[in-house]
């Protein structure tokens, strides 16, 4: 039996270390250690994670119902009111399905790949300010504390860094599956992500330039003070939106899982809950992407002064904006057909990359000269040239379609030569 004195000798450094750990993680914004601060953060993190999970489950339901609505059919409406419990039933099915790990796969990579897709999508949300601040008593005095899980000074960079990691899950999943379709999906995913991450990052640069801060809370505050950035940076906002669609592998850019070409792409070899995790990762990434777009370009949780009613109003405004963009994800899916792979890469490298680069230079110039009209030069040029190109194409098509007398039913005009 160990004497009590020895126990104390062993326990002292352990307790000291625990106290150190506690100190390290429980420092509030002003450096004071408070129990309320830690508890509050833990609760906020738990709420965020659960809201994200429930929202992604509901998105599966919304996806099917809205798709059905757009195609004039009913969709799942049996489980619960309006089929709202359908995700729960699906989850039960996924849970109890046999978890097959094919023998020809790399077991370790095969198992961790779905996790790598979900986790980055989820932890990105930590720095997004979803509503204003609240008063909290820290170290004896009232201080305004923001609701988001972590108020990082380099929030924008953190988000760009973490969202870029989600692609590892898809790429490794495709590789570990060790079949040609999943490998093709994985390779496509990595190429697509690199191409669109550049435009994504460069589309955010004007935002940082105008707001003069990498802190998402300050970016929102700046927009509330002046104007939403979508009005001064419409082109950056549009490119950001498109890049988000590419980063989340949603139609029209779902090349990694294009089911008409690659069976199911990177998750062809997956079954049961591992497959569901890939699914979940995609939906959580959609929620995070929408939240980012809203925060960076659409004023975040502010709406022309309405948010001053209280933090709950900010939350409502933020949710409404995010839900609109989530709906837009489904809307676009059934509106725009899938791009061809070479078109996708061309759009990323030949169109978006130069446009965002020029936009960054012009924005910097506009700030240096203090001339806001410069913001609109590039967007108007782009819209003008797009309209011009459309007009020329239309004229040429009109010219081409006419003479086809001897070949009935093969009137295939309108394609480029």
């Amino acid at each position, binding site marked *: 039996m160990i004497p009590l004195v020895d126990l104390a000798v062993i326990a002292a450094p352990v307790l000291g270390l625990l106290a150190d750990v506690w100190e390290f993680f429980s420092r509030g914004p002003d450096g004071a250690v408070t129990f309320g601060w830690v508890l509050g953060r833990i609760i906020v993190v738990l709420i965020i994670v659960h809201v994200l999970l429930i929202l992604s489950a509901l998105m599966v339901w919304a996806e099917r119902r809205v798709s059905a609505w757009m195609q004039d059919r009913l969709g799942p409406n049996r489980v619960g009111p309006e089929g709202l419990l359908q995700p729960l039933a699906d989850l039960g099915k996924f849970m109890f399905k046999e978890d097959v790990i094919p023998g020809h796969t790399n077991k370790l990579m095969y198992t961790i790949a779905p996790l790598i897709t979900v986790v980055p999508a989820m932890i990105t949300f930590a720095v997004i300010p979803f509503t204003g601040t609240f008063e909290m008593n820290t170290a004896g005095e009232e201080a305004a504390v923001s609701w988001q899980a972590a108020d990082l000074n380099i929030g924008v960079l953190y988000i760009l860094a973490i969202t*870029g990691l989600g692609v590892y899950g898809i790429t490794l999943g495709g590789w570990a599956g060790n079949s040609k379709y999943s490998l093709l999906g994985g390779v496509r995913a990595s190429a697509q992500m690199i191409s669109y991450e550049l435009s994504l990052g460069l589309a955010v640069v004007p935002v940082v330039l105008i707001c003069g801060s990498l802190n998402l809370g300050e970016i929102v505050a700046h927009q509330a003070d002046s104007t939403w950035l979508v009005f001064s940076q419409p082109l950056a906002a549009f490119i950001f939106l498109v890049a988000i669609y590419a980063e989340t592998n949603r139609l029209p850019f779902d090349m990694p899982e294009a089911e008409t070409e690659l069976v199911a792409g990177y998750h062809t070899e997956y079954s049961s809950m591992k497959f569901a995790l890939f699914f979940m990762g995609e939906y959580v990434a959609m929620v995070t992407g929408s939240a980012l777009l809203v925060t960076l370009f659409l004023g975040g949780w502010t709406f022309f002064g309405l948010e001053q009613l209280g933090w709950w109003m900010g939350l409502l405004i933020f949710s409404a904006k995010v839900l609109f963009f989530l709906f837009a994800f489904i809307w676009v899916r059934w509106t725009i057909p899938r791009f061809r792979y070479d078109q996708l890469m061309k759009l990323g490298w030949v169109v978006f990359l130069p446009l965002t680069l020029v936009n960054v230079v012009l924005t910097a110039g506009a700030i240096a000269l203090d001339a806001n009209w410069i913001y609109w030069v590039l967007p108007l040029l782009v819209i003008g040239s797009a309209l011009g190109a459309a007009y020329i194409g239309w004229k040429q098509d009109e010219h081409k379609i006419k003479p086809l007398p001897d070949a009935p039913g093969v009137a295939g005009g309108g394609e480029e030569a």
Partner: protein
Amino acid sequence: MTVALFLIFGATALASALLSVTRKNPVASAMWLVLMFFGLAGNYVLLEAYFVAAVQILVYAGAIMVLFLFVIMLLDLRREQLESEPQPRLPFFGVAAAVLFIAVAAIALLDAVDAGVFPDAAARSTLELDGSAKAIGESLFGTWVLAFEVTGFLLLGAILGAVILTKRRLT
């Protein structure tokens, strides 16, 4: 606590760096290298260089290693191919790299001994070390602008070289 975290991150970085050069499977190597970047980024955070930490993950883990992975998968080398590949033996370059590495490590160690491994807040303020984006931007485009431009030209040269190597015919 800082020291404990430093040891954890440092050990992670060292172990995964070692594993990344010893693995036979190129994909496993690449993934260990990604973990190494995370260990490094953790240490940058401990040094309060948040900007460098984020850029480390953004550039190396998020972009460059994805590109590596893409190339590895595209080549899809089999184990036999990897082992039958003749290993180029260039002792001169090996020795040169080792000497350079030891020199850099020695300088860094001496510096660290001078400054104390973890300079406290007072010492740091006298050193004017600041990990914010502004401080880094000012020193990069102010004090070190020549080095920055030279690096830019070096990278441009590398890009041009890559283009010339991949273009079979130049007319």
